[in-house]
């Protein structure tokens, strides 16, 4: 599976924003973190992370600059912009509302 489904794509953006809200990261570190926090549930190939990053950068939600890593390599670090922070707050809110609503519906059918 090389291209995430639409649902995953939407959540992927949210997850990236969330990860970057903690601290600026380069692509590989983001992919590592994604794997960790989603407990490997999100089955995306590492490569599909990058189009998402570039799109977010284009939309001015995140910005990128080249920095030196601790082992003295140049890597592209992504960080949240002010717009990105607002978008994250908005998206997580609506996500919570949506997921809350969905889980309620799901439970309803179970009864």
């Amino acid at each position, binding site marked *: 599976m090389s291209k995430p489904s639409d649902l995953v794509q939407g959540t992927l953006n949210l997850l990236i924003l969330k990860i970057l809200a903690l601290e600026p990261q380069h692509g590989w570190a983001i992919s590592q973190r994604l794997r960790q926090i989603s407990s490997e549930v999100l089955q995306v190939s590492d*490569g599909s992370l990058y189009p998402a990053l570039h799109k977010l950068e284009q939309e001015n939600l995140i910005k990128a600059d080249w920095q030196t890593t601790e082992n003295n390599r*140049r890597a592209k670090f992504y960080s949240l912009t002010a717009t990105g922070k607002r978008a994250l707050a908005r998206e997580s809110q609506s996500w919570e509302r949506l997921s809350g609503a969905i889980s309620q519906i799901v439970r309803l059918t179970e009864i």
Partner: protein
Amino acid sequence: MFEKLSLRLRSLFRSPAVERELDDEIRYHVEMQTQEFVRRGIPEKQAAILARRQFGNTTLHKEECREARNLAWLENLAQDFRHGFRTLRRNPGFTIVSVLTLALGIGATSALFSVLDAALLHPLTVNEPGRLVWLQEFSKDHNDSGSNPARLADWQTARSFSAAAGFYGEGLVWLSPQGPEQLQLLRTVGNMNAVLQAKLQMGRDFSAGEIRGEGQPVALLTNAAYRRRFQANPAIVNQILRLDGTAYQVIGVLSPDLDYPEDIDLWAPAPRAIQKTSRAAGFLGIVARLAPHVTIAQAQAEMDVFSARLANQYPATDHDRSAGLAPLTDHVSEGVRKPLLLLFGAVAAVLLIGCVNIAGLLLARGLARRREAAIRVSVGAGQSRLMRLFFAESLLLAAAGCILGLALVFAGVALLKTVLPSDVPHLAAISVNVRVVLCGIGLSLLAAIVFGALPAWQFAAGAENPALKRTPQSRLRSALVMAEVTSSVVLLVIAALLAGSFLKLRSRPAGFDSAHAYTFALELPWDTDSNVLNSTTSDTLLRLSTFPGTISSGVVDRLPLHGGTQSNLFVVRGKTFPSAIAETEFGLRTASPGFFAAAGIPVITGSVYRPWQGINGPREALISQRFAAIWFPGEEPIGHEIAQANSTKDPRWFRIVGVVGSVVSRPNDTEPAAEIYVPWGATYWPLLNFVVRTARPLTDVARFVHDQIQKNNTSQIYSPVVTLADRTAETRSAPRTAALLVGGFAVVALALAALGIFGLMSHETARRTQEIGVRLALGAEPASIALDSIWRAVKLVAAGLIPGVAAAWYVSTLLQTLLFEVAPHDALSYATAAAVLLLAAVIASLLPAWRAARINPIQALRHE
């Protein structure tokens, strides 16, 4: 097809730097992942493979990244335009007015640009036009004067020129299968083609002998004549054309690129006899090509040395003569440069005012859309995105205006061709070319920036910063209205000056009476035998006198107001004059005795001379009143004898037999001319202007001339009969056109400015509703509220008047040469312009003021 386009678009946006970064980023990721696997104990080779596998299809992901970048950009753009389009569609009134304003402005400006392009920017299409110079000879007093073949031969030896040649024009009659036609012949002296470097499209050039006027007469057809008169049939080459009885062999056709001199049908070397004319003659125009690496200043320096040497060598003819060089391109467009630039400036000013108006409307709409901007910002739109959003609307407006405007250009060019005076170079050939279209597109972009930038900035800034919302808004609009007023003042002042100048020109007493007078012309070749010339003249005059109803008829070398007199020094037998008087400019004309009564020029004292009866007959002359006033003040001029000063040994004395009224001889002269008239035949002049005075209508005269004169003389073509009034008014058509066009533009500018004032004041009234309500509640008179409103508009216009008058002051100084008897700082014109604008301000603010006065205080306060 669409995919291809999008692929091309994408590669267009693909920059090497971005590509390299993308490669680096992915390589870094794979390396880090490999290290990670190695750390977990996987052998390095396998780790690298695993890391790459986990990354997925690199090429695909790269492409997706590129797409994410480019498409996001394109998508945003498309979104902005879609949004702009929707907004514009929701406001059809605003959209239609804006697009029409822009279309008219862009159309008119581009149409005038097409004229500028042809007449000023590319007046010549010959090879290296910048190396061509016009050589103008001057007699003493710096009067323009024609050259002659002998002097041309001297100029040809100048080292500054790689070639020099002379020419003069001649109208010849060709008996075509469809009947007689007048052909315009360019008589060349010297090798004209060496100067212009025009290639032939077929046939051969003149041989060296033919250039000198030797051998059988030969001619080269111009491309225009080849196509128009000979249907581009190559069989015409080597055929014989009979022109005025002489057989010319057509030896070739000139290049279609050759456009100088204009309106010529064929070239033929001047006859041998003409090429041997004395140094005293003046009929040649001279063009030369500068030698390689010679500047025009260096060439001019050589001319000055030549002039000094020639003055020594030939004191009788070349004394006090000089020669000036000018780029031929300048010479060609000399007379039309200023009027055309003026018109272009005027129409561009109208476009600018139109843009400012649209900017004002956009600003007002921006205010109404503050909430929308605030919402957009709150959902994450950045300031630049907001500006882009708003600017997309402006671009759409400009694009629509551009398309419609370019459609209008064609109509504009057709209109300009009919209203512009015919001395505009290439007038007939003006077309809507690539440069004109580019000019239209450029103007539209510029317009979008002019009217879109400020409102977009205000829209975006107002949303981010609430403090910016109110006050600068009206200040901005006031500034825009002031700018409109400023441009309108300039246009109005110029229009008033031109109109005043034209009225003065029209009401100037010209010294002749054109009512019931008709005129037609006959051009004979310059080598017409003088016996043929005289018999043609007397024959025509005789027939004219048989027309039932002719009161009088005559012939003259040049009509009044048609300029160009043969000016020369003269002497009065037995008298000497102080040099101030002796060197005063005067004109020498030749006319038959009947001319004076026919043209309504009164005889003041004495009587009209008798007809010329040959060199041994009586030699009599008339002088104009002005001439008498200068040379014979307080003295009886009749009986004195005068002669041309340069007829050295045996002067031909003419006895003054009378004084006639003075006429204005040149279109822009303010004073009537000092002139001497000698009988027709006393000097050689083959260009005949007949004048008939009769109570019969024009059609009768025209029919008589056609049936009784033209029919009996098919070898010559008489020009159509027109009224003397029309013929002499031709010289005023250029100032009239300029006054009308600039006046029209000024009216449009005024209307637009008034519209701008109206919009601003209406908006102000709406904004101040509550304030006015409070005032009314506190007892203010509605009338004083209304007056206050009007007063605000007047103050605004007055503020715009100051820079406007300053700008008009400067511009009118540049245009001084276009004005006739009106000072560029004519107070009346300035006062009129200012008064008109103030009046417009009052009228434009009447309705808003009335609305302000009718505000209901209770409603206005409750509104709060």
